[in-house]
């Protein structure tokens, strides 16, 4: 069924432009961009709202299997649709870890039955994310694994990692690393500095991230594997990243929305909803990350959606669980960077949609004829105060509770189907 979305500000991250017009959709794909509609088709007036390729979010934790009370594919799917995320790429740090084709088939089936947005899955790189034996990379690729990662369990045995990377390279698989020197970061709950020291929190030097990245880049050079760093959050890690790219290594990097919009002081009086991994950084680091996204050194912004129940957060700070939910707050938080003049809308969607899709070899993330009709329509200026209990995620652990935000998703489409919103006050 053909559909025309008109009177929109079209954000094209490929061309880097914002134009006024509409898009024509048919059979789940974009047919034309900018052309006026034929009279016969169904039309939706976007009333001047922005229209962009839907967000491709690398690194969402859906707590199936293992902890469905924290987040299910159903609740995550609703949250994603409400947040303008049209493709979720899930993390394998579940319990048990997604490390066999059988478990991957289980989650693939659950995801297909329960959610209306696109869901792709990462698999663990080593069995049980224990860092000792590599998983069945080939079988997992056949079963649909889109990338391989042990998430925050850094593979400390360099020999194991080297072999896994070498094997992955022969199959063209993407390995996603978590750059961190675990010996330094063990037990840390904050970034080393005046604030963490005064608050008496166990802390880690930002240097731990650079040391981890340096090692990984060395191994990428050695093995030739395709590598993506899940989160680069400190200014010190940027020069080695830039060098690796300049040397032609197949390396990309991401950053979480929280490290772009919050800093270490937000923890304030031991507020555990601000405990994330790696810990929030200094304001200088935050600014450096925003700049790195602007100039393309950091390729991808992701939510690092990590649901935690109330019990695991209602603890003393160093005992509390890490992580924050972010599927629904990703876009309004990212728009803070637009409203502050730090990033343009095309720059934002390059990092939210285009680059992650490209890196994963997905067709999505573009606003061009032939691309899938995975789209988000949003009003970047609409103000609201976030109420965490209004979130669709089962877990409500957002650092933005009570925050004043700007930017509401009006409508989300996946393969041309409206999966969220449509009315003016959706």
């Amino acid at each position, binding site marked *: 069924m053909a559909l025309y979305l008109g009177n929109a500000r079209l954000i094209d991250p490929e061309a880097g432009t914002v134009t006024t017009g509409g898009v024509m959709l048919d059979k789940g794909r974009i047919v034309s961009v900018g052309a006026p509609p034929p009279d016969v088709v169904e039309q939706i007036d976007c009333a001047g709202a922005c229209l962009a390729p839907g967000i491709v979010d690398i690194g969402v934790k859906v707590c199936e299997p293992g902890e469905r009370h924290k987040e299910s594919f159903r609740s995550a799917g609703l949250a994603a649709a409400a947040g303008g995320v049209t493709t979720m790429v899930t993390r394998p740090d579940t319990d048990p870890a997604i490390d066999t084709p059988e478990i991957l088939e289980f989650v693939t089936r659950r995801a297909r039955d329960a959610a209306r947005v696109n869901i792709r899955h990462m698999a663990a790189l080593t069995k049980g994310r224990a860092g000792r034996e590599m998983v069945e990379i080939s079988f997992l690729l056949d079963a649909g694994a889109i990338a391989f990662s042990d998430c925050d369990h850094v593979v400390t045995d360099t020999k194991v990692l080297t072999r896994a990377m070498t094997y992955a390279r022969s199959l063209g698989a993407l390995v996603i690393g978590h750059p961190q020197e675990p010996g330094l970061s063990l037990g840390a709950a904050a970034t080393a500095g005046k604030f963490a020291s005064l608050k008496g929190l166990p802390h880690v030097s930002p240097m731990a991230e650079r040391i981890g990245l340096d090692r990984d880049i060395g191994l990428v050079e050695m093995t030739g594997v395709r590598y993506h760093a899940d989160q680069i959050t400190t200014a010190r890690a940027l020069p080695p990243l830039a060098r690796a790219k300049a040397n032609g290594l197949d390396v990309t990097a991401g950053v979480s929305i929280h490290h772009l919009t919050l800093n270490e002081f937000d923890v304030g*009086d031991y507020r555990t909803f601000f405990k994330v991994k790696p810990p929030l950084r200094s304001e200088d680091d935050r600014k450096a990350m925003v700049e790195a996204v602007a100039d393309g050194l950091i390729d991808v912004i992701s939510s690092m959606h990590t649901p935690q129940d109330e019990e695991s957060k209602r603890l*003393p700070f*160093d005992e509390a669980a890490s992580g924050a939910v972010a599927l629904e707050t990703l876009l309004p938080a990212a728009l803070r960077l637009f409203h502050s003049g730090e990033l343009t809308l095309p720059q934002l969607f390059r990092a939210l949609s285009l680059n992650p899709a490209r890196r994963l070899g997905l067709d999505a993330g573009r606003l061009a004829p032939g691309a899938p009709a995975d789209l988000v329509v949003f009003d970047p200026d609409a103000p609201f105060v976030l109420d965490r209990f209004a979130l669709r995620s089962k877990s409500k652990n957002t650092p933005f509770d009570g925050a004043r935000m700007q930017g509401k998703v009006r409508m989300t489409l996946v393969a041309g189907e409206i999966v969220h919103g449509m009315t003016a006050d959706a």
Partner: protein
Amino acid sequence: MIFGQDHLLGIEPLHPDEIRSLLDLADRYAEQNRSGQRPDPVLAGLTQINMFFENSTRTQASFELAGKRLGADVMNMGVATSSVKKGETLIDTALTLNAMRPDLLVVRHGSSGAVNLLASKVNCAVLNAGDGRHEHPTQALLDALTIRRAKGRLHRLTVAICGDIAHSRVARSNIHLLGKMENRVRLIGPPTLLPPGAVDWGVEVFDDMAEGLAGADVVMMLRLQKERMDGGFIPSEREYFHRFGLDAEKLAKARDDAIVMHPGPMNRGVEIDGTIADDINRSVIQEQVEMGVAVRMAAMDLLARNLKARNTPRRVMV
């Protein structure tokens, strides 16, 4: 008298005038204690619960004595006898205790911020008896009272805090307090025991005792917290004593009338030479213990007054 706090969670939230008020009252209690006079039982009818998630004989005894001198009903809840060992969360423990309607809750916990968390869940006044590496406010207050009595003032003094600063909540509370009262604070210790970012605290940092002690009015030694050393922070105790232990030779760099303090318990021969600790002309370590009771009496007295003021319904004029 100015004291507007509902809890005593740390020195950081206190105004200098609140510190002065508390010390003035503590001074009066110290005199009464010394003269053997019974103070007014201002805490009579109030229940004080001491909840120590970390073992401490001295601090717990000091709080208990302070409460009893002022007439409170004091109950000690040791961690070994509590349900925390059975997996109860801190908040559930707090709610359970809260249901027993205590008036004063004295808490020590191994995690920074744990006492703040607990205070947010209960209706009574909470006193922090030490949380992780964060704060130990009554220790800083008793140190301040000791200094004020020995030196005649609590401003424009040069105070050297020496030893394991990184793991010390005593150091943090003292840095806040001495800074608020406009003193010069120096931190001295091996770089592995100095917290990162300490130079941004408005203090001077030294890793040489002779240099750091030069001209100091007060020398505050810290306990080398062996139980918190989960890796080699120092090569050996004897090398530590050689470089950072307070002996007569190092103390000679400080002012002739400099006083020596230690929060206890002491490791003689590790951070402090026994003869200095026992030198009644220099060491005020016993006086610190004495002032501890007085300061805790004052703190609980002031908090109880605020508690009463908060809970008394305003009288309606007819």
